[in-house]
């Protein structure tokens, strides 16, 4: 992702509608404004360290959370895992964390299962170099191992073990934001929720931890079935959810359901939370990059509107513009992502109504592309049979967006597209991890927060590839 930003400072201020205080600085460089590039431009100038937009709990005024939250699910990897098995590049992570904190980011969201289980430890290592009050850390109860066959005692013991390990790995005495991780899945989501949190007494334990101050705020992250969402909100008096993490972006606002009937449109989720004054934390604002890696003419559309801002910045400003939001999480692997996102939120320039409509129209256009809604979260991994599921789906999406998925041999683009698809496939996915090795065992699908029917999709892609290889499309 390449980001080039060069908005004229004047235009930018106009949009902001601020004038008086800045007028002095503006005047100081006005004499050469037409010829010289403004050294303080929001898009080409230095990235501001003191302009981050912050949000607090509306009811209590508690906390001051940066609107940009750091998602710790996509930390950069080492070329080879370290001797202890740690796949993450701690040095690089420290750099990113330092830069983020220096520029006002103070919310870090992780989980015991992220990055093959190393995210908490690595994030903790980076954060412990700062005073505890300098940052908020969010982590989750990812007790997906609990199943109905497990005794409540066993499931409680292991879950609490996970909670304690989180604190140990993060190297903190208390957790600022603690979430029940990814509720709403399973064939019977309410029963599933009860098995994981209620029948074993875990939720009572966590609420006690909240009272004791070792958990400062308790909430849940939601994917999947709407009945569970409604059910949990109806129990607000009992549980006092202080925040809820939802998937929201301009595509999912109205189109989440179209990808899968089990998904819930963000519009509904957000509105329900707003009604109850429960602030939302936003995940997948960029859909794992699907909203920045878009077809050429969609890029044109964005750039026509604002030539200097990145495609990704639209998605972040969209989420930030909603007011009942604490923070927008972004899993930033590269420094350039971090810098671009800081520009988007330091300070936030809220979208106008027209701009919002522009995004909804863009979403309609994007929905015409048959991409697979994979956000590269890697929850499906590791596949026990060695497949690289996200890489396969991402390669397919890339080819869809680049027009390299020909319909048939009569396609004028066929020869070129065929080569791009097949050569690119071998480059993106190791041969032994390609779709033709899928056994269809379906161990992956239950983990997918987007409810993608992974084996069916892989089989479809594999059939397509066979047709390309055999020239029988």
């Amino acid at each position, binding site marked *: 992702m390449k980001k080039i930003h060069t908005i004229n400072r004047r235009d930018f201020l106009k949009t902001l509608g601020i004038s008086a205080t800045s007028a002095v600085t503006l005047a100081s460089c006005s004499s050469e404004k037409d010829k010289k590039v403004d050294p303080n431009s929001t898009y080409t100038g230095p990235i501001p360290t003191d302009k981050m937009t912050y949000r607090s709990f509306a009811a209590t005024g508690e906390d001051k959370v940066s609107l940009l939250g750091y998602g710790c*699910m996509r930390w950069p990897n080492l070329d080879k895992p370290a001797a202890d098995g740690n796949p993450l590049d701690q040095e690089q992570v420290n750099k990113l964390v330092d830069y983020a904190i220096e520029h006002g980011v103070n919310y870090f969201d992780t989980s015991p299962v992220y990055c093959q289980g190393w995210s908490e430890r690595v994030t903790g290592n980076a954060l412990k170099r700062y005073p505890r009050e300098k940052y908020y850390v969010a982590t989750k109860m990812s007790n997906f*191992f609990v199943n109905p066959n497990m005794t409540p005692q066993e499931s409680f013991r292991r879950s609490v073990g996970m909670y304690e390990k989180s604190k140990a790995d993060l190297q903190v005495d208390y957790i600022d934001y603690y979430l029940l991780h990814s509720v709403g899945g399973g064939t019977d989501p309410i029963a599933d929720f009860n098995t994981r949190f209620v029948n074993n007494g875990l939720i009572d334990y966590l609420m006690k931890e909240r009272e004791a101050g070792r958990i400062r705020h308790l909430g849940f992250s939601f994917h999947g079935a709407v009945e569970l969402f409604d059910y949990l909100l109806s129990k607000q008096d009992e549980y006092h959810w202080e925040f809820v993490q939802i998937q929201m972006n301009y595509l999912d606002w109205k189109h989440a359901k179209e990808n899968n009937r089990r998904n819930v449109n963000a519009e509904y989720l957000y509105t329900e939370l707003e009604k109850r004054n429960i602030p939302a934390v936003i995940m997948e604002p960029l859909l794992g990059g699907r909203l920045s890696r878009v077809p050429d003419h969609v890029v044109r559309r964005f750039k026509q509107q604002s030539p200097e801002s990145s495609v990704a910045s639209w998605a972040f400003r969209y989420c930030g513009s909603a007011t009942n939001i604490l923070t927008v999480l972004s899993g930033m692997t590269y420094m350039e992502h971090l810098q671009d996102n800081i520009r988007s939120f330091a300070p936030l320039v809220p979208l106008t109504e027209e701009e919002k409509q522009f995004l909804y129209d863009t979403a309609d256009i994007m929905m015409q592309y048959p991409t697979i809604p994979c956000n590269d979260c*890697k929850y499906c991994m590791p596949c026990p049979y060695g497949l690289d599921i996200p890489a396969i789906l991402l390669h397919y999406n890339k080819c869809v967006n680049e027009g390299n998925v020909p319909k048939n041999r009569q396609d004028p683009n066929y020869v070129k597209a065929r080569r791009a698809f097949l050569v690119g496939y071998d480059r993106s996915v190791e041969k032994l991890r390609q779709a033709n090795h899928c056994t269809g065992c379906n161990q992956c699908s239950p983990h997918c927060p987007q409810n993608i029917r992974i084996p069916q999709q892989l089989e479809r892609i594999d059939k397509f590839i066979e047709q390309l290889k055999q020239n029988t499309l």
Partner: protein
Amino acid sequence: MLRKIRLTLAVIFFTCITLLFLDFTGTLHTWLGWMAKIQFLPAVLALNVIVIIALIALTLLFGRIYCSIICPMGVMQDIMARIGNWFKPKSKRKLPYSYSPAKTWLRYGVLALFIIALIAGVGSFVALLAPYSSFGRIASNLLQPIWIAGNNVLAYFAEKAESYSFYHVDTWIKSLPTFIIAAVTFIVVFILAARNGRTYCNTICPVGTVLGFLAKFSWFKPVIDPDKCIQCGKCSKKCKAACIDYKAFQFDYSRCVTCGNCIVACSSDALHYQHITKDQQVHLVEAAKANAEKIAKREAAKAERQAKNAEGKEKVDDAKRSVLTATALLATASLAKAQEKLDDDIIKMDGGYADIIEKKAPKRLTGITPPGSKSAKNMYSHCTACQLCVAECPNGVLRPSTDLMKLMQPVASFEIGYCRPECNRCSQVCPAGAIKPISIEERSSTQVGHAVWIRDLCIPIADGQSCGNCSRHCPTGAIQMVLSNPDDPRSLEIPVVDEERCIGCGACENLCPARPLSAIYVEGHEVHRVI
């Protein structure tokens, strides 16, 4: 002029035939495939009468120009000889060779052994001696990996540049014995060629011996005109075949490869490429007699002088013998890493990859030969083990056999890829008729083996997971899924093979998730048939 034409043609032939072996994209054989088919031994094995007659006619007319132009092994030796010359003392660089008598017993002895082996069907011995096969092994084992490495460098940069013009290709040693044989052949031939030119062609090469016999009777020959010859001996010292006895005005035409170097070397215009009449022949013999007397007198006088001076040093001529030996295969005991057992206390973490254990070849009772080869017998009796099909196979299926009786002949195995339905490239390139040309349609209905299921390894049985990947990828629909327990409609499904429909392509074996041994594998058939 003659030499220039010869050089130009030789360079063209050599380059093209080498490219034929290097090319892994399957595009060149359409244009250059005939170059392999006009090689002598493959033509004989393919019973390609037209080519054989043409080559015999060519030799009877012009002498052994086959060895100077068409045979890549011959041209390769000329290149090696040039390289070898760089390392010779300056005095010998220009005139590096000298006449030596023919080693007739060795030549015909090897030829006799070769013919016996050919008739008795000892393919590995035939393959070891055949010049084209030797070159093919050198090209595919030593040169193709370098070529592919170059391609992979380009592919690396192409990937950086988001270009699809080059793609990465895997390369590996397909069979250690064959690789060693190729390397040893290369080294031995290099040493022979660098020191003494065409020694290989005139001692070991059976094709050279046969053509040499024919060349004795060829219409055009290089001839010394005794009236013009000044006995300088340059021609002889230029002759890489060591076949010019200038003192006797004689050529050993069975060894002359008609390269034309002697004609260029002659400073007194005494050498011509022409037809010899009977009269000329008589004149030559007479002149030789006279010259011999002259030399004898001179020698006698010289001997007298020398006897006075000191005792002469005897020159010992070493007989160079080269023996090509096949080396036994080093058993590479691959330490199969045991699949890490998931401790039930370990929580499923997100991301990362499961280890993939390398596939191992099953023990097949009968080896698999590629479609088009008709039968194991046909393959066995025609294949020259030139490795062209192995170099061509884009799926990593064909590799040289390590079985001593059919050493280096191609066999199929499916650890890396499988015999893809859209591919018939091996059949298109084979020059020897071991793999007959076969269309895609024929290929898809030719049964070369059949799949065998191993219950205990099958994923539904071993892992308790649903699978069916073999069935999904069977191009002929020969594999169906049935209940593992007929009484329980919810039991996992297992594959069953319809041996009548199975063509033995190996898709099931290659794509079977069971590792290191597949739960379904192909057993070869002695005789192929169309289903």
